């Protein structure tokens, strides 16, 4: 594919009941793009964690807010952007916790950084955060 990336956009309420729908959507999309089962499971996990983090930390569990998902499909990469309009995190504190410390919580960020090739956070001027996660497409992926 030459030129602009293919773009999918979706606005979803900030409710955990949409997690299964989002996973199903991404699982189908990634499989269609030629990602292996292992890669698909990993990216679906990362998207799930990112979405759940927004609900928990940016919207403090308020299920009525808005989360925008954008997928950019390019020949070499797939990029998933998750934009919220809630409380901005302290980016310096978004770090995977020490794994030797076995306790509940704090694993989601570690999963995202482990399975994606690039993870960045942009604090937006008015409100909210744009999380951008990129996964490289291997040779086995179809070119679209």
């Amino acid at each position, binding site marked *: 594919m030459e030129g602009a990336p293919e773009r999918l956009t979706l606005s979803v309420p900030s409710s*955990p009941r949409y997690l299964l729908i989002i996973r199903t959507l991404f699982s189908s999309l990634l499989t269609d793009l030629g990602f292996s089962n292992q890669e698909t*499971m990993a990216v*679906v996990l990362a998207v799930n964690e990112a979405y*759940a983090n927004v609900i928990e930390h940016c919207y403090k569990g308020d299920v009525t807010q808005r989360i925008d998902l954008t997928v950019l499909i390019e020949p070499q990469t797939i990029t998933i952007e998750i934009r919220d309009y809630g409380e901005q995190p302290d980016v310096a504190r978004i770090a995977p916790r020490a794994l030797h410390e076995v306790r509940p919580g704090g694993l989601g960020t*570690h999963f995202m950084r482990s399975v994606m090739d690039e993870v960045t956070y942009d604090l937006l001027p008015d409100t909210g955060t744009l999380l951008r996660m990129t996964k490289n497409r291997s040779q086995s992926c179809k070119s679209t």
Partner: protein
Amino acid sequence: MQVNVESPQAGVTVLRLTGDLDMNEVAMFRPTLEKAVRNAQHGVILLLSELTFMDSSGVAVLIEGLKWSQRRSLPYVLVDLTSGVQMVIELARLENFFTIAGNLEEAMALIAGAS
């Protein structure tokens, strides 16, 4: 997610998890697990062969279950992990933290050996 509670042997509680364990399901599952650990006398087994997805909130509740079990000196065994759940346990580097068995018979033998 669906949870079936079984007791194949007196004092051993088996929780059979079917579906996805995510942030939406943890609130339902946590009290079920807490009750299972509280009531078991010899051990708790989580049968995960039908658990198709687990996220970090699911891992967190499994860690809680293990800690509750350790306080009661109860064996706590995860059985027959799907590839997705195995991936999450390995990403969290918890494969040596949990006791993991390949099947129910193996888990029962581990519990029998611990008592």
